[in-house]
């Protein structure tokens, strides 16, 4: 048993970043029309101005303009949701917390849809409304999940599931008022989909998500103590109110950003931090960056499957994560309650 060092954090982070790049590059080569490795290599080298390779028109069109943004978006969404999950787990002191299971994604989705009724799609308004929806849902679930003044696992999860179902019902009502063409896109988006238009440019999304993650990471050492209980954390010198506020805002914002670009992709926020804890321990100083990279890899992988398994038909990536995630969730819940 050795204490965590900065060196170990860097090593594991570098390892996982390497894995993400590897899966990402493989994903760039796969699709309805696969790109052979040699051609892909020449194309990427050319795009990065390495060597004398030139970028063919095919490559520019398929790899750089279609697949690359998609892979980058998948990585961003996976990272945001996983880190949000790890954050909510510390905030709610519950290892089974996940933005989707607790209805926070639904809250963000409802906010985003309401903003669509008010203004044109694909604006900053969508992201802001999703953020407010997520904040309100976390607050609601937090209050409903208390029993005798304590957050209690079954009560919290039940509160989350019921909240999600209630919010979905409202989303259904709103959707019936929309014209048919928009409806189909929205329904697909709600299932978790990475092919919808973005409210912000990919570059600004990256800036927003990375800044939020950095803000959350400043509390990493505090979160370790918060897991032991708020009073213990305070006895050890943690400013509990400030830390909880930072986590509440950051995790909600990450959820909202992810949901507003990809709909509700479930269970990533639960499964990825769990897997990372099994592999590398539960210290948040390592858990947060490792979950970000692991989550990015997981969603890039899932989205590659979604694009290729039934090509040219695309499967919604949220349905794929749910098929894997729901049974694992039941397993973890049973183990936790024993």
């Amino acid at each position, binding site marked *: 048993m050795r204490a*965590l060092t900065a060196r170990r954090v860097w090593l594991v982070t570098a390892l996982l970043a390497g894995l993400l790049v590897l899966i990402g590059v493989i994903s760039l080569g796969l699709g309805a029309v696969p790109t052979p490795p040699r051609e892909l290599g020449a194309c990427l080298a050319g795009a990065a101005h390495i060597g004398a390779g030139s970028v063919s028109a095919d490559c520019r069109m398929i790899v750089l303009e279609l697949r690359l943004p998609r892979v980058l978006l998948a990585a961003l969404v996976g990272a945001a949701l996983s880190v949000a999950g790890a954050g909510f787990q510390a905030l709610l002191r519950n290892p089974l917390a996940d933005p989707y299971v607790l209805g926070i994604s639904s809250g963000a989705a409802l906010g985003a849809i309401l903003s669509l009724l008010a203004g044109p799609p694909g604006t900053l308004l969508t992201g802001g409304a999703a953020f407010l929806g997520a904040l309100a849902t976390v607050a609601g679930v937090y209050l409903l999940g208390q029993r005798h003044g304590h957050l209690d696992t079954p009560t919290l999860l039940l509160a989350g599931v019921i909240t999600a179902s209630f919010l979905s019902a409202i989303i259904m009502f709103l959707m019936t008022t929309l014209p048919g063409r928009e409806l189909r896109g929205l329904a697909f988006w709600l299932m978790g989909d990475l092919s919808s238009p973005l409210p912000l440019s990919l570059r600004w999304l990256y800036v927003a998500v990375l800044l939020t993650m950095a803000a959350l990471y400043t509390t990493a050492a505090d979160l370790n*103590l918060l897991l032991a209980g708020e009073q213990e954390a305070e*006895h050890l*010198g943690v400013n509990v109110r400030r830390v909880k506020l930072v986590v509440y805002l950051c995790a909600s914002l990450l959820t909202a950003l992810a949901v507003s670009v990809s709909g509700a992709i479930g269970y990533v926020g639960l499964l990825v931090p769990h897997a990372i804890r099994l592999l590398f321990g539960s210290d948040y*100083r390592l858990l947060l960056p490792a979950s970000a990279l692991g989550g990015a890899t997981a969603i890039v992988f899932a989205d590659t499957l979604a694009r290729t398994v039934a090509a040219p038909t695309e499967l919604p990536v949220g349905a794929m994560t749910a098929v894997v995630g729901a049974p694992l969730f039941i397993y973890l819940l049973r183990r936790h309650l024993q």
Partner: protein
Amino acid sequence: MKPTETPVATRPAPPRALPRLSVQGVSYAYGSPPEQFVLQPVSFEVARNQVFSLVGPNGSGKSTLLRLLAGTLEPLAGKILLDGIELKRLDTRTRAQRIAVVQQENPLLFSLGVLEFVLQGRYPHGSGLRFPEREDLKLALQALDQAGAARLARRWMHELSGGEKQRVVLARALAQQPVLLLLDEPTLHLDLAGQIDLLRRLRHLATSGQTAVVLATHDLNLAADFADCVLVLDRGRTAGIGPPSDVLTEALLQQVFGVPLRVEQRPEGTLRIFPEVNRV
């Protein structure tokens, strides 16, 4: 009863005049007026080499008083001074550098190694992400040793028995290098040998001047054996304060605990307190 003023030191007087802890007319109540008093005004002082014990039945205000001393509750009235500085003027982090609290632990959500757990005690002294430095590791191992838990350093928290865990929790508190150590029922999960060992260690920590010790306990005999001064609380009131042999009298204890008790003075000067139970 009127709150008593200064404590009576039974051990040699502290090297400096300033007491470590000075509690001046502190009271606490829940709710807005009319308040439900949980703690009537209480005053006492604890010197830097003393073990001070709070005794009393359940609901007498021991835990509330401990939380006030820890600074997690603010008194309704009165002042708490640590080395002459009012407690509420210290921020959370500075407080944690000076005061450590050992209480009944919540179960951990994810298991930790014992050494990692003890290193958490270094948190208030570090900055940023608080990766442990050589000095922190040294202090953590030293704290484990002082708590009698050195052989547990490589174990996991979830494998420990109640008594072992209690020692590790004490080690984490010592790793904070506090000048005041507060303990709530520290002997609860310990067997007889463990109770005596723990109290000896606390006695040693205090006598050596490392940290003043304030503990709440049900166990009148341990309080009588190891404390320099006891405060008997009865439904939020100070029923008695002073050296064990002065305060722990049959009349007072019977009145506070509501059961017949017998107090015997042993030749070597210690007290034994027995409940008088008639077999049916």
